[in-house]
């Protein structure tokens, strides 16, 4: 998400996040969103799928579409409505996202006059990208998370531990870690499905640390990992019960990718939605 934002916007948002953390004296993770909202006189309520109005809403626009609504900020009322997610880490990110619309001056001023829906699609997307960046920087307390990552062994196991410390999702923690990592690494995030032969994985997106491409080349985005692939076998053997993270060594580079032939270490893990592979040169 950050790739779409200019340095000046990122700097401005980082400055705002610093200000919020200073004003609320939050110095250790996890971020307390209640303190931040009350310091600004903002109220919030949670809504659930069990709310009577929600049922009507979901019937009118469809359940899947309704599920995408995670939060709303009413600037004039100084009120946030958040969907009560069973996964608290997702709720935190949604809270941070709505706080962004309040704390970023150019968002708040706009929302006093009009709705986000009054903006052009491009402008709306930009606003949402900026709010997501703010939520991410706030949750990771600007550079503090990356300092913690830098001070420890780069592994999914460690990042899962930090995910609990910061109360941020494992996926967002992995993304933030790889995006800002000085060591060479890449993150392959895959959609997974299960059939008679076991699990199959298809690349959803890939992130690289600054040095990985130079050292190892690019990993093909279009590849999928069928039942015979080494990674799938590992996943099928060890991750059926999702009991932990597993590490194995292999060689990166095939006819479908521009990657150089390089011995690598892959650590894999999956949750109910996605599978993650952290790739590091050996």
């Amino acid at each position: 998400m950050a790739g779409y934002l200019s340095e000046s916007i990122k700097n401005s948002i980082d400055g705002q996040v610093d200000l919020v953390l200073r004003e609320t004296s939050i110095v250790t993770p996890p971020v307390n969103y209640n303190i931040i909202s009350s310091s600004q006189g903002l109220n919030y309520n949670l809504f659930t799928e069990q709310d009577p109005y929600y049922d009507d809403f979901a019937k009118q626009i469809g359940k899947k579409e309704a599920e995408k609504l995670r939060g709303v900020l009413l600037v004039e009322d100084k009120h946030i409505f958040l969907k009560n997610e069973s996964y608290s880490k997702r709720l935190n990110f949604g809270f941070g996202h709505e706080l962004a619309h309040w704390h970023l001056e150019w968002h708040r001023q706009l929302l006093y006059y009009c709705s986000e829906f009054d903006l052009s699609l491009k402008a709306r997307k930009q606003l949402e990208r900026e709010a997501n960046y703010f939520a991410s920087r706030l949750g990771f307390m600007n550079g503090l998370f990356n300092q913690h990552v830098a001070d420890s062994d780069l592994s999914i196991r460690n990042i899962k531990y930090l995910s609990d410390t910061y109360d941020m999702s494992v996926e967002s923690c992995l993304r933030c870690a790889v995006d800002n990592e000085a060591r060479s690494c890449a993150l392959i995030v895959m959609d997974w499905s299960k059939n008679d032969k076991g699990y199959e994985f298809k690349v959803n997106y890939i992130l690289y640390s600054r040095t990985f491409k130079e050292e190892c080349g690019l990993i093909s985005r279009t590849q999928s990992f069928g039942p015979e692939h080494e990674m799938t076998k590992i996943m099928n053997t060890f991750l059926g019960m999702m009991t932990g993270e597993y590490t194995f060594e292999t060689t990166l580079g095939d006819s479908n990718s521009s990657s150089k032939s390089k011995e690598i270490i892959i650590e894999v893990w999956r949750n109910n939605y996605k599978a993650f592979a952290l790739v590091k040169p050996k």
Partner: protein
Amino acid sequence: MMSKDLFTDKEKKYEPSASDLRDEFIINDPAEYVGEFRKFFLKWVRETKGLSKSIVCSKCHVSTNELDRVEKGNISEKDMMFLNKLADIYGLSYPYLLALFKLARRPQKFSAVKLAAYHATDIDEATQNKIVEFISKLKGSQQ
């Protein structure tokens, strides 16, 4: 009236101003007029306020090139923060500026319920209306 010498004298650089617009532009099509207006407006306001480029650049933390680009009307959604700062410095309405540069609909058409929704951005107007309706009901139930 603008002197024609301004264009023939190679030593002088052509500096557009709001007065140029009156002389040079014949209003045939209002949309075309607004299109031209976008290319002059921000520079004209800055000059009217007696502010130099360097002062505005330092207040907005942008380079002269960026200010030049914006003053020529080459504005995208990535300039919303910048436009907000300019609106603040020049005493202009920020939402009106967004509308002028086609980043928002016209202020007369602004929605009555003002909200920011965390949802997929590419939703149609009917879905937007349903979200507004739902939130209005939730808000009503809280009061």
